[in-house]
């Protein structure tokens, strides 16, 4: 059977070309009107046919939260699991079924708070999962408490005097967890979102994609600075492989690496760095990730890091294949051999 080049490994190809409509389930979508999740759903459904994989070989696994309703709306296999645990469940599925394309849909609370441990370990192992983290910087389903990506001092229902926690930078976190593919995109930029999904799907191993997503009920306009056409150009940095990293209304800003500095800098003029996500040293991608803070003043989007190392699935599968090559006889015969592999004695 021919296999897909996207997402690599043993994925079969669909005999007929699918369309976005084929990926819409019969379930009524129940996010709040105006939620950024709708745009992401449409973008994912629109992208899926590109995979060329039959629907039955695609699985979406989610945790708990608004974003985690996602699998119900995809006409693929899917599991809406429990809070924070989707990467763990998806790991078991992916490792035991190399013929599946496994996607994890999660949110900032689900992935970075209650499920932080599973996220970092899935990335460390490089499990062949495509992890889409919808970051709206707020708890939506529980009606408006601050999240681990909310800015310091955030006033919410649970922090009337302002939150005292510093937020995570999800890109920095993923890089610290040894992720091999790390990207960021925005719910409202369908073209960019789909280009990132494509790159993630092509990656062998864990792909971590942070998607800035607007919660119009509890945190409306959180990403307005980099979405509004009047402010966007001076704050949004589009990372493109092999291209100089410049931005600004008149392309006047450059991301540079000052001599003797550990980090990168944004300056007017200057010699821009040429973006290369395949740099093996994660320090480069990490330095890029540090350009953005809570204020979104200079926010890179695109693929930060895209490097190759063997996936967990591949290594485990190889061990199994090698061991099975030693199989001698039927499973029952091998079992008899195993049970008797000890000091035995016979009573007549």
């Amino acid at each position, binding site marked *: 059977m021919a296999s897909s080049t996207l997402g690599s490994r043993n994925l079969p190809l669909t005999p007929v070309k699918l369309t976005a409509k084929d990926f819409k*389930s019969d*379930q009524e979508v129940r996010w709040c009107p105006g939620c950024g999740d709708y745009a992401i759903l449409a973008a994912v459904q629109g992208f899926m046919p590109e995979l060329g994989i*039959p*629907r*039955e*070989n695609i*699985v979406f*696994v989610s945790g*708990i939260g608004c974003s985690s309703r996602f*699998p*119900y709306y*995809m*006409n*693929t*296999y*899917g*599991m*809406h*699991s*429990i809070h924070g*645990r989707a990467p*763990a*469940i*998806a*790991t*078991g*599925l*992916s*490792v*035991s*079924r190399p*013929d*599946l394309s496994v996607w994890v849909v999660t949110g900032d609370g689900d992935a970075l708070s209650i499920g932080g*441990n*599973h996220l970092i*370990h899935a990335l460390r192992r490089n499990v062949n999962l495509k992890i889409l983290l919808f970051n709206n910087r707020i708890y939506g389903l529980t009606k408006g408490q601050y999240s681990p990506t909310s800015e310091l001092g955030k006033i919410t229902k649970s922090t009337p005097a302002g939150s005292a926690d510093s937020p995570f930078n999800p890109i920095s976190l993923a890089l610290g967890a040894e992720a091999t593919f790390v990207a960021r995109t925005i719910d409202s930029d369908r073209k960019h979102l789909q280009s990132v999904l494509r790159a993630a799907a092509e990656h062998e191993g864990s792909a971590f994609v942070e998607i800035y997503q607007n919660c119009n009920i509890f945190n409306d306009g959180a990403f307005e600075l980099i979405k509004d056409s009047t402010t966007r150009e001076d704050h949004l940095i589009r990372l493109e492989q092999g291209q100089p990293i410049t931005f600004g209304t008149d392309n006047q800003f450059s991301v540079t690496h000052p001599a003797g500095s550990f980090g990168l800098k944004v300056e007017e003029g200057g010699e821009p760095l040429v973006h290369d996500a395949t740099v093996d040293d994660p320090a480069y991608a990490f330095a890029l990730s540090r350009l953005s803070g809570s204020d979104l003043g200079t926010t890179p989007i695109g693929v930060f890091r895209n490097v190759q190392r063997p996936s967990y699935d591949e290594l*485990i599968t190889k*061990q*199994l294949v*090698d*061991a*099975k090559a*030693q*199989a001698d006889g039927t*499973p*029952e*015969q*091998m*079992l*008899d051999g*195993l*049970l*008797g592999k*000890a*000091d*035995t*004695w*016979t*009573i*007549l």
Partner: protein
Amino acid sequence: MSAGAKRVEQLDRVVIRFAGDSGDGMQLTGDRFTSETAQLGNDISTLPNFPAEIRAPAGTLPGVSSFQVHFADYDILTPGDSPNVLVAMNPAALKANVADLPSGADIIVNTDEFTKRNLAKVGYTVSPLEDGSLADFAVHPVALTSMTVGALAELGVAKKDGERAKNMFALGLLSWMYSRPFESTLRFLETKFAKRPDLVAANKAAFQAGWNFGETTESFTVRYEVKPARMKPGTYRNITGNQALALGLVAASVRSKLPLFLGAYPITPASDILHELSKHKKFGITTVQAEDEIAAIGAAVGASYGGALGVTTTSGPGVALKGETISLAIALELPLVIVDVQRAGPSTGMPTKTEQADLNMALYGRHGEAPLAVIAPKSPSDCFHAAIEAARIALKYRTPVILLSDNYVANGSEPWLLPSADELPDISVGFTTEPNGEDGRFLPYLRDPETLARPWAIPGTPGLEHRIGGLEKADKTGDISYDPANHEHMVRTRAARIEAIEVPDVEVEDADESARVLVLGWGSTYGPIGAACRALRQRGLPIAQAHLRHLAPLPANLGEVLAAYDKVVIPEMNLGQLAHVIRARYLIDAVPFNQVSGLPFTAATLENMLEDVVKNG
């Protein structure tokens, strides 16, 4: 090694306890003695007892590690209450164990370790070898360490390596004393130290020196023999509960024709199951050492969803962490086996000691109405069959099953009559591959009318794409549903499908059917309860014994069995958890008898208690 010219005495049973510092190799010594004894055809039961510390300070009481082996020329049920022989490698080992000895017991002590400093470490001001405090026992002082070093000096073995071989000297001596065949030990040493021929030679020489010492010394005047037991014909091996459980899971994979997937996080006393299964990849077994207990069961659920036999192994603290995921598996109605090798709690408790106090957690420890099946093995070798039974129920009824082992059966061992793989039950079930609803729709929660199990349609099956999750589902379609009547129906159906699981009737051992008292147990207490009942019957006191393997659902005939006796006594290593269930469910005045010392019941404890109940009601 000749037989020697000493008097030979026949015994029907012997209990030996090897005790020493945790670095003295007592577990290995006990294992080897057990293996020799198994070769001879005695029935055997063993009990290791070791500290949780890997290397507690040398020579101290917390550092004492011991291994007890009971062997007989008839079938036995327990590792024995009190040792006939104690091998004490140092003062701490003597002090920690002497209270368990009946008067007249033999004590073999390593006098080299009875130094002023070592005695002081455990609070002896005068050596117990000299103050007359051991007058009730037959003490055999042996300079074990120096004789070993001496015997090995001519081989050019360094003093330090020589000292380390002293456990083999002790094994050689005991092997001589009880006329054990030693070929398997010599073979074992050759394999174990294959890369160090010098150590093979040293350990063999130490073993030989111990044997020869027995033959020549005047300290031992008698040699003993214990004839082979009359056991069912067949091929046997000795096996621990954890080994048997792991092999049972391999067998379940073979007999279900499904790949086994184990998600596990290391925890005492369950880790050996992970170690064992990780060696058997050629059976298509995948083991994932997860980042935590929750991930371990999560990965197993994910694998079950994908069509594997998903298993997670742990102990009590791990089950507590897994609770939410077990609930998810109950809602998803997927097969899953959760192995809980119980240890003494609460919290970290005593990780290397035994207890049966997780029954309530297994039965009830989840939010919402979340019923599942619970089964418990009764002996080390029974762990094999219990594992297959757990997998059978999980697969056939699409439910999580908790398998409640405990430290006592997990680390204890007994001879096991090897089954033939072909004769093990076929527990295979098919996946659903075709739509089951009208108009070619797939209804993931349309149930089998007999088992109430839902279809198992795995990803990769064209046309059956569907979504499942923890939210309440509409009957049949599996769509999200908040409908009150639907929830009522689903909750009752989930309970009914567990109650509908077919489990065998509980059998009653009641020799002449004259008993008025029934003793009811579950899990690892089978051995001591059985031994106590036998002892009572031999003394003419009638008593009936029933033992539960299935704790949820309970056997259908249990109510009838309980009603047939005037009195029901329930011994448990907890504060009465099964007794509560029995009293609530069958409205009988069952009498709990409880011990939570971290140690298994002795047969004598139960015999005394039951004698009182039989005689005085």
